[in-house]
């Protein structure tokens, strides 16, 4: 897919909770093609500390409104700076980057999209895409507590939502990997994004149960386009670039 460098305009910056915010970006011209699982490289301006771009998943693309959504967690200087942007600001992006989730599962497959923390970000776009293509999605979303479960009403538009919270304040208590649905129902395919321990546990679950499992990895990146080789992950086929050969991988190919 052709990559672009674009100046988008910030239409809305919603603070979701203390640590998360949602950017809605738009442009006078139609946004280029983008697919679920892909990400963007955001330029952080006006910061003394931030030098490199920051990789962020495509949370959702609203074609009607010509909007690109990014769901971001404040973890350091770059995300902090982005959280302070006001509507009208120009945000420079490289996009779309990376590969995609498997977008054409066998019809009638039992799909579950599992996200932990801000790892839910790419799953909204994926769920919407799959629903549009006549698949039924189950979402299993985990967070620390009820207030940390983000975008629930959005997810509910595209499938059945199950949740876990560490303190039991919403859904089942515990981690997503402990949710009863994983025992009570069987699935043909898992799409997962979240903290490494979560994805590792799912990779094990997948290999034990023989379910096909795709994970979207995070990694420190410089270029985002396969030029620097800084973002490798170890796999059965050696070092793979997360920014071009990923971020989505078959969990079986990775060395956990």
């Amino acid at each position, binding site marked *: 897919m052709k990559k672009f460098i674009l100046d988008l305009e910030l239409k809305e910056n919603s603070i979701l909770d203390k640590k998360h915010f949602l950017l809605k970006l738009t442009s006078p011209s139609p946004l280029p093609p983008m697919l679920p699982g892909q990400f963007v490289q955001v330029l952080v301006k006006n910061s*003394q500390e931030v030098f*490199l771009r920051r990789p962020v998943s495509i949370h959702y693309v609203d074609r009607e409104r010509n909007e690109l959504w990014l769901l971001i967690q404040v973890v350091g200087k770059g995300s902090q700076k982005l959280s302070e942007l006001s509507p009208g600001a120009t945000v420079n992006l490289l996009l779309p980057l990376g590969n995609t989730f498997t977008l054409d599962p066998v019809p009638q497959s039992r799909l579950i999209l599992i996200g932990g923390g801000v790892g839910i970000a790419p799953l909204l776009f994926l769920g919407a895409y799959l629903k549009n293509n006549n698949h039924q999605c189950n979402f299993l979303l985990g967070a620390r507590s009820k207030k940390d479960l983000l975008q629930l009403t959005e997810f509910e538009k595209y499938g059945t939502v199950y949740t876990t919270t560490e303190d039991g304040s919403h859904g089942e208590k515990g981690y997503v990997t402990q949710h009863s649905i994983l025992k009570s129902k069987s699935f043909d395919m898992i799409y997962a994004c979240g903290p490494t321990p979560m994805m590792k546990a799912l990779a094990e679950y997948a290999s034990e149960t023989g379910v096909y499992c795709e994970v979207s990895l995070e990694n420190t*990146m*410089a*270029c985002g386009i*396969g*030029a620097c080789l800084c973002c*490798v992950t170890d796999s059965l086929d050696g070092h793979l670039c997360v920014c071009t050969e990923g971020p989505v991988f078959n969990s079986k190919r990775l060395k956990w």
Partner: protein
Amino acid sequence: MVKLSVNIGGVELKNPVMTASGTFGYGLEYSDFIDISRIGGIIVKGTTIRERQGNPYPRMAETSSGMLNAVGLQNKGVDHFVSEIYPKIKDIDTNFFVNVSGSTIEDYVATAEKLNDLEKIPGIELNISCPNVKEGGMAFGTSCASAAEVTKAVRRVYHRSLMVKLSPNVSNISDIAQAVEYEGADSVSLINTLLGMAVDAEKRKAILSTVTGGLSGPAVKPVALRMVWQVSQAVKIPVIGLGGIMSAQDAIEFILAGATAVQVGTANFIDPCISTKIIDGIEDYLVRNKFNNISDIVGVI
């Protein structure tokens, strides 16, 4: 029309802007963003005699106005380059140089030999300065004797343009430049990365898997400018300047300090269009200041 073309050790570049090894892939990675044939020269990734997996993750750390990398020469080896990559790039109208790396003199020589016959590769950049590999690499670039030895050995077998890339991690870079000039280098490029380190205070660990890595980006520009200025006074062969170039103004600073051409590295990660912007910016500068030829400003300091 101002004249932008320069001659680098026998290779005519349409303009003095090249892209630096390890930061521009094989050029193709950038072709969605720019017309890469506009670039004066493209130095491809560090290439070794055999495939290398490079260092374990993490390989990168951001620093103030810069970054550290410890990629460690991950590449599929020179044969892969010759059979798989070369056919894809050979008809692009720019000059591709292969960055040749190795752990032993034999490796360097063998790799260079295999590139001798590639018609559309007018030269190699001999990387005697990579700080990210255990044996060899930088070690060759930090003493005059070993820098001379590897240059001499490669010179004997390689008949096209030989650019030697110098390490900044030395007490006296001019001496090393003179040593490789004496052994037949057609040009020198500098600087490779400065050896640095980053620490995660919360985890109380080094960030890079290799502890140390190579520092690049604007943070190193003052050191790079100084070395280019020193080396350009010490040698007669063309000097290619790099290290922290982010804009046309930066590139012009290197040219004023003595560089006949420049390379753009880390900046490509922040703006994939920067190399062509720099070409345009240099042209504007020359026009604005009424110079007809880029050579009018080389080394005026």
